[in-house]
């Protein structure tokens, strides 16, 4: 009798349990150098998770985490395995192999499908980038090896200055203007923003990178059908009135197709 009951119970558990289980589809946003803390950004992550949950259905559960420091991100990834994420270009090129990252889509910060980095110094500073001394700061310089290749096409060890990641690029820029720092590397949104300030007239650009991919949406590990659904949802967000505020908080005007340049850059940086 007890044996029979156990068999029935096991059978019930085996039949019913899949209906109550749902697939985890957690994500991370890793943007080294960007402002805020993981805690501050959690409401935005929750909002994105809720939006995607509504779009992708109840068969998945979604939670999101934000990191703007590489160490914190690495610590999280050591214990957790998110299914996808949005990562900065430097992070993608530095970790694509190790984390098995596969591009899914691209972001559109300020509506642009490309980023451009500029090396900026004070107007009375050096005229050639090779003449810059000291430290060069920038939010994208937390992966110095990758950044050196993208910006200067030179191994980081051969540069006449050091590359330093900063979370306070504006302060670094003011410091450069006061003659206290070497130079600052600005991405396109930052460079555009600085044009609205009076300090813009005291700066000059020494070097401009080639057009670079924007932050990428990536899958961690192999692609599944759920990733395809995600890709479709992300692509439609720009046309969805309900996503307007969310996109503004994510600082992108929507999501585009995978940037083909990522593969070439990945090979080059490898």
């Amino acid at each position, binding site marked *: 009798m007890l044996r029979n009951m156990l068999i029935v119970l096991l059978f019930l558990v085996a039949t019913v349990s899949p209906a109550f289980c749902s697939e985890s589809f957690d994500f991370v946003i890793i943007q080294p150098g960007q*402002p*805020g803390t993981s805690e501050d950004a959690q409401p935005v992550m929750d909002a994105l998770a809720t939006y995607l949950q509504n779009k992708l259905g109840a068969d998945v559960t979604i939670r999101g985490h934000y990191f703007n420091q590489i160490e914190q991100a690495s610590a999280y990834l050591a214990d957790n395995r998110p299914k996808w994420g949005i990562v900065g270009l430097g992070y993608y090129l530095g970790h694509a192999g190790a984390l098995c990252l596969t591009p899914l889509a691209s972001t559109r910060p300020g509506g642009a499908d490309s980023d451009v980095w500029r090396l900026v110094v004070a107007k009375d500073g050096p005229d050639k980038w090779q003449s810059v001394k000291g430290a060069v700061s920038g939010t994208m310089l937390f992966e110095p090896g990758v950044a050196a290749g993208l910006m200067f096409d030179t191994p980081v060890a051969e540069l006449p200055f050091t590359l330093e990641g900063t*979370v306070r690029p*504006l302060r670094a820029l003011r410091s450069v203007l006061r003659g206290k720092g070497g130079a600052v590397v600005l991405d396109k*949104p*930052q460079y555009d923003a600085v044009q609205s*300030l009076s300090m813009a007239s005291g700066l000059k650009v020494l070097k401009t990178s080639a057009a670079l991919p924007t932050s990428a949406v990536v899958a961690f590990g192999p692609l599944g059908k759920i990733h395809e659904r995600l890709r479709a949802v992300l692509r439609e967000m720009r046309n969805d009135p309900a996503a307007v505020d969310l996109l*503004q*908080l994510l600082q992108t005007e929507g999501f585009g197709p995978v940037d083909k340049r990522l593969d070439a850059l990945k090979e080059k940086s490898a």
Partner: protein
Amino acid sequence: MIFRMFDIFLSGLWRVISRVPRTIVWCAVALAALSAVISVLFLRLDSDQDKLVSQDLPYQQRYLEVLKNFGDQEYLYIVIQAQAGDTGKRSAERFAEALATRLKGFPEQIQEIHYRLAAQDLGPGALYYASLDEAKGLTEMVGTMGPLATDWLRSGKLPELVERVSGLLGGGASDGALPDPALLGPALEGLDGFVARIDQSLAGVAPTGPVFDMTDRGVHYFFTTNQRLLVMRLLPAKDYGTMDVIAGPLATVREALSKTRAEFPGVEAGLTGRPVLQADEMATTNLDMMRASIISVILVGLLFMLVMHGWLRPVLVIFCLVLGMAMTFGFTTATLGVLNLLSIVFALVLVGIGVDFGVHVVMRYVEERKAGAEVDEAVRTSLMQTGPGIILGATTSVCAFYAVVWSDFTGLAELGLIGGTGILLCLAVMLTVLPALLLMAGRRNLFPKSMPQATVLPVFGRLSARPGRLLAILALVTLALLPGLFKVRFNYNLLELQAKGLESVRYEKRMIEDSDESTWYAVSVAKDLEQLDALRAQFKALPTVGKTESLSDYLPQNQQSKAALFSKAATYLETLPLQPVVAGPIDAQQMLDALDRLSVALDNLAEKLFAAGAGEELSRVDALIKKLDSAYARLEGDPTLATRLLPLQSQLQTDVMGGLRQLQTWLGAKPIGVGDLPLFLRGMFVGRDGSMQLKLIPKQNIWKAANLKTFVQDIRRVDPQVTGVPISVFESARLMKHTFLYSAILTLVLVSLLLWASSRSLRYILLAMLPLSVGMIWLLSLMGWFGLNFNLANFFAIPILIAIGVDGGVHFLARWKELRNGCLFETSTPMAVALSFATTMIGFGGLLFAHHRGLASLGWVMVLGSLTGMLSCLLVLPAVLKLFRYGETSDKE
């Protein structure tokens, strides 16, 4: 039979004219003068477009009932284009404020101005208008800030307030997340005023007035959903005794708009709306009509002088026309007492048609005089021979106009009555006064001794010498043109009748293309709120309805949930002190430390904005930091300046206390019912009988007939009683088209009956109608090739063309019968007929240069129609008469 009656009548008339010509003239002048006087005294203009159709029509009755119940809500729309971003929107808002301030100075002209809704407009229940999420956010915010503010009020120290503001901004302790973009703008604005006050106070300049003004908060401007346009609605005072109804208010608004544009050169704005479009239409048509009249009077005068030789004969004809027109004014005053927007054009009709009778009389008189007849004999022959044709031709024209007298299109019916009667009066004058004047002038030898030369058209005689060949060529030409006939369509789009480049048209199109707004909306009426909500849900589900506007939009949703939240939030303010405390002196060092912390907090914020690429906000924070640095430098340089901050400290205590009290009032308000809504909203949506209107704004461009039809059909499925401008325009356009078609057919039938009565011959009818039929085929074919479609302005040409087309045929047949020798082109009749068509062509030809595209198209149809009618008369009819040897076989041409 009829012609015999004409002979008897005309003989009697001649006897009277020949005996007492002077009496006849003076009687006519007296009657015309009397008519003119009573017209000036009693005839009035009613430019109310709503009175152009019968008020007995069900759809019109419903429309007028709604107008009466809910009042006139036909607005002028100021469309302000907002550039992208917050700055663009702020500029548009400032533009609207400046314009509104200017217009508020003219309350007698601009009765209402709607462009924003402030929290204070909504009364104590203002917070219920927040969404549930916003209400939750507000509750949380009150939970955080309420105790802080209350706590601060207990000390009232300025440095402490600055510290608290720094704390709210992140305080430098934490990087913090990027603030909610929606809150950042207002927060920076408030902070900017606060910091500027500190700096100014330290500089010894202390402006008065509140630092934080709650009355200015929560203002919602009427932007379209896509945020691209800010739409202001103005209700003008109307004067239906003037042509353009809103001339005064329109001029005021345009002047204010022009001044405001000069003040904000970067902002684009324009004026539109149904009353503006109508006023602009009236202004352009008036200008066009005046120009056309001047051109046509000069050209007709020159043509008359050329053909009739000298100035006296043309002047006599024009004088008689003026007498006829004056009498028509008198008739209108005595019968209707009013002219409407359509019937006012009767004068143009009389110039086109009435003058033709005189042309026939004078041309025949000239012909007889050239042939050597004495004055009396020439006048008698002219009257006796041209009289029957003129009477018959005039009667056909009268048929065309009287055919619409029983139409439900009141405007057209009145035009029909006035136009038809005017033609009869012109006929009477041309058959009595003109012969009398010719007699008087001829007897006194006032006419030039030399005779006019250009009274015949021999070239057409030569052309019709071989009638078979001519008709074959014309048949080929007709066949070649024929495919064009099938290209002609009816265009209902009223916007395409307007002049190109008009600001009102441009902004109407912009509103249609670039927003979910429309100056045209339908109205459904509900008995109560329940029915209103049910109707609203049904209409919203329709694919053709873009959005709805009703009282329900202003009754907040989820009020009970919000009430619970607000009640909770109110508890955070329970400890609010009754009076501000005396805060005492300000410690300079404490203030410097507080300013330093605020500077760090702003610096952190600037970093976040910089990383996000938010240049606009970054520049505002940068400016704020500079002001803060300035204040810091002043106080650091002279710490005794801290005493200058004391008035500011007191003011801030008052402001914060007042703001929190206001918040307490809002949080304690009960949920809003219909009776609690502001008066202007109730006035807009609740009728005098308590019913409620639901405005239905179309999704598609309903200036296009197909879209209008679908929209009307759709909304009628939900509510068959639905009314409003789209329904009126849809029904009126259909009524107008049907009236024109009906009148065209009725005219043809009446003219045929008239011709039958006068001849009892089917062949005669067919021949009289031949020039008209062929001319119409040519006209329609040419219209097709020229891409000219019928529309609500030019379709009016068809009944007129029918009337004058038959007229030519009747005169030709009468002269052909009289001659019995086929030498038609040796007489003055072809020239008279050609002159009649030519005067019509010239009369309407001035409209070809009209800016109003509807009028220009009317000009084109009339000119082309008159031309084809004339050519058909001169080429086809004589050739056919010859070919079939109508009346007489001998042909000497």
